[in-house]
């Protein structure tokens, strides 16, 4: 009896210990709650949303649910006013006037005014002392011809009235309005948000359909709740958003994102073309709907030409010829992407395919081997490539495929340790990587790609330093907007293998059939946002019916 009692006490103690630790577990959202609560799975973890941060596509989707841009891309690929009511320009594209919509409020109660836009622009320019120099700052500095003080800033950007801002640019910028979209990056935060260093990390008041409930402490889960004061209405004039909460959960393995969707444990998930096998399996599932973006986004390697090995043209050409683009599209993407022999879709100003009839580059293993040998003859060294990857399984998989292709050509290749998308992007801009595999040529407009191809410090190939003539070419193209000029410059990009196209895709969003309203919210300027695009998807009207 005594033994039994003692044994029982141990058992009770063990159960109590388990219960104690279990009760300490942080209460966090777990499985998808149905109805008004939406669970969206993404592959990229949170690494900041403020002006200085450079999240990848998955985090931009989440960020754009909270904070919005002055202009936006509609389903036809055209940039239209969004938080702005009108965007006007002078004939020489040097003076721009943005008139804001009235009665839009941030989540913290502040009204959207010209002063708020100026505060955001100052942050974007790196003039906010709380927010260090950043990627957007470089781009915006280029637009404004260098602004280093608030006095200079005041001369170039003024509030004409409560809702009107005017910008005086030193040089023509025909696509200045598109810079306020930049695939969802330069969002407008409340003034108070910009006055805290926690901006975009754990806090952030935007004008979007959802506001932050918890973010940043758990890097893998972002919880948003409905903004009951949201300014947009649905097609019937009813209040938005329809969902009460949205949870973004990071699941890095695409197979598990597919499993969770298939089981109904999640409502929506994003996928890249590198998740080809999972996408093809989900097509057979009648309970899922796959939204595919238009295949107009080209993933290209941007070569760092300022340092070995890609300061050598032989190395760059070896790399370009070694890429088996058909294999990338078929084996890695399983048909969910097209091999890219030029940049972007045939209608993009950087595209030289003449309507898809001409290849700008080719894949050729024999030639790749020749150039690997030429590199060795030139430098006395074997071509050794280090490919950076982010933390998603797709990134590792696609880069490993490229590594294998380079090895076939006789080059050495290894993957760098995985880092966040933000770290990878910024490290690329700082020219601390041999290459960066990015998707800057997309859609219809050259505006976003222009940030990377002219004299901005953002050009990832570093050709500003090694080929100033090409940077000047792109500068002229930008200032004139002439497609012929863009194509003249793009021909040099190909010829020198500064940027190397790999495959073109459109991105994928997969939702359960019970999810309705995806991408259905009308834009105030008419039309809708594309369901899948580089700035994510519009889920202000989304609801789950089970």
């Amino acid at each position, binding site marked *: 009896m005594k033994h039994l009692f003692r044994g029982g006490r141990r058992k009770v103690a063990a159960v109590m210990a388990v219960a104690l630790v279990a009760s300490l577990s*942080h209460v966090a959202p777990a499985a998808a709650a149905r109805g008004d609560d939406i669970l969206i799975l993404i592959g990229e973890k949170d690494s900041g949303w403020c002006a200085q941060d450079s999240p990848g596509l998955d985090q931009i989707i989440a960020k754009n649910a909270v904070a919005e841009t002055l202009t936006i891309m509609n389903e036809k690929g055209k940039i239209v006013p969004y938080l702005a009511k009108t965007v006007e320009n002078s004939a020489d594209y040097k003076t721009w006037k943005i008139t804001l919509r009235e009665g839009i409020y941030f989540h913290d109660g502040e009204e959207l005014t010209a002063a708020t836009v100026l505060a955001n622009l100052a942050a974007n320019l790196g003039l906010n002392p709380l927010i260090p120099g950043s990627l957007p700052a470089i781009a915006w500095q280029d637009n404004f011809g260098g602004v280093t003080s608030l006095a200079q800033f005041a001369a170039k950007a003024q509030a004409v009235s409560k809702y009107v801002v005017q910008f005086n640019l030193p040089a023509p910028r025909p696509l200045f309005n598109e810079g306020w979209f930049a695939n969802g990056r330069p969002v407008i935060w409340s003034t108070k948000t910009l006055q805290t260093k926690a901006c975009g990390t754990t806090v952030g008041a935007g004008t979007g359909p959802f506001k932050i409930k918890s973010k940043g402490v758990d890097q893998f889960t972002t919880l948003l709740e409905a903004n009951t004061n949201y300014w947009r209405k649905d097609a019937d004039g009813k209040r938005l958003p329809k969902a009460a909460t949205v949870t973004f959960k990071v699941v*890095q393995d695409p197979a598990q994102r597919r499993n969770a969707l298939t089981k109904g444990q999640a409502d929506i998930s994003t996928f890249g073309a590198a998740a080809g096998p999972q996408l093809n399996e989900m097509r057979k599932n009648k309970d899922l709907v796959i939204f595919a973006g238009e295949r107009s986004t080209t993933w290209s390697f941007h070569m760092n030409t300022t340092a070995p090995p890609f300061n050598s043209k032989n190395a760059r050409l070896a790399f370009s010829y070694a890429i088996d683009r058909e294999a990338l599209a078929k084996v890695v993407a399983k048909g969910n992407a097209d091999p890219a022999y030029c940049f972007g879709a045939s209608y993009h100003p950087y595209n030289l395919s003449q309507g898809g009839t001409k290849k700008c580059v080719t894949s050729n293993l024999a030639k790749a081997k020749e150039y690997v040998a030429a590199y060795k003859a030139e430098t006395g060294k074997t071509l050794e490539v280090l490919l950076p990857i982010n933390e998603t399984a797709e990134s590792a998989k696609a880069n490993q495929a490229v590594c294998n292709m380079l090895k076939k050509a006789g080059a050495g290749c290894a993957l760098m340790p995985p880092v966040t998308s933000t*770290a990878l992007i910024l490290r690329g801009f700082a020219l601390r990587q041999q290459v960066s595999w990015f998707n800057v040529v997309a859609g219809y407009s050259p505006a976003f790609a222009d940030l990377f191809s002219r004299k901005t410090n953002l050009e990832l190939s570093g050709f500003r330093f090694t080929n100033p003539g090409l940077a000047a070419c792109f500068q002229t193209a930008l200032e004139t907007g002439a497609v012929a000029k863009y194509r003249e410059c793009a021909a040099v990009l190909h010829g020198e293998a500064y940027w190397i196209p790999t495959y073109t895709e459109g991105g994928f969003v997969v939702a359960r059939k019970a999810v309705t309203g995806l991408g259905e919210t009308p834009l105030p300027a008419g039309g809708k946002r594309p369901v899948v695009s580089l700035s994510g998807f519009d889920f202000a009207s989304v609801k789950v019916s089970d």
Partner: protein
Amino acid sequence: MRFQVAIRNLAKAALVLFLVTFSISILVRFLPGDPIEILMPFATEEGRAALRAELGLDVNVVQYYFRWLSDLLRGDFGVWYASTGDGGGVPVRSMLAIALPRSLLIMLYTMVVSLVLAVPLGIFLAYRAETRTDRTISNVLFTISSIPNFAIGLGLAFVVGVQLDLLPVIGYVPFAESPSEHFKSLVMPLVSLSVGLVATFSRLLRVDTIATLREDFVTMASSKGLSNSWILWRHVLRPSSSTLMTSAALQMGALIGGAVVIESIFALNGFGMLLASAIATRQYLAIQSLVALIAIAYIVFNLIVDVLYAIVDPRVRGGRG
């Protein structure tokens, strides 16, 4: 005497902790890439210098170490830096409050499940040593222990989660929210982590038990007419379990930070993922604090095992072991 032993053990533990954490202070500096480049690549020189000072990179490694240690002893685990530098980051302690209990629970459940299955299996295999049953099961266990746990995890998720629709494939449900969903959410991760451990533990116990069965006291017990099961459970198991306990203690420490792949597959967001993320983003202070916690866990579990040796094995308790 006992007091002296306790003091000696504590001193040993403190020395180990110092050596581990100080080594980490040195090793993190060998991680490729400047953390400032990763955290704030476009910062001004002043901003970079400020962050360098905050991270303790402006002083030598000894000064850096003692500054960190002093903070740690005051309960400050450091800050997870955002791109705005100090003031914009998240206290590591807040992040630990989410991640650590999950990982502790996973570790605890995994060890309980593994031991509950491995102990009877190991005893049984020793009892049936060198029979066809023993050889067959031992070979199966050997095969199972060579399968990586992520492969088991993915396989389980697809078959049990998707095909059979029995368990959730991702996510963690806190016990306080729903005990039943809590256990459901952890079944597949636990099985993935336990399968290899069951194989390892049972094989270790089998070997030690076979050796114990050859001891004179077992022959004596048998000649007294005691039943086989009584002899196995009361007289053989205790002296045979020292290797098992040592291995279990090491595995417990390893599971806290080392279940990163399983945590990632099942989206559990535990300590392992936090540590992997800290390394990826060169969060020096967080790496240092998280590794210190793992070291403490190893030390604590090994101290517990030292105590258990004495409880379980009378020879150790009597100083005869």
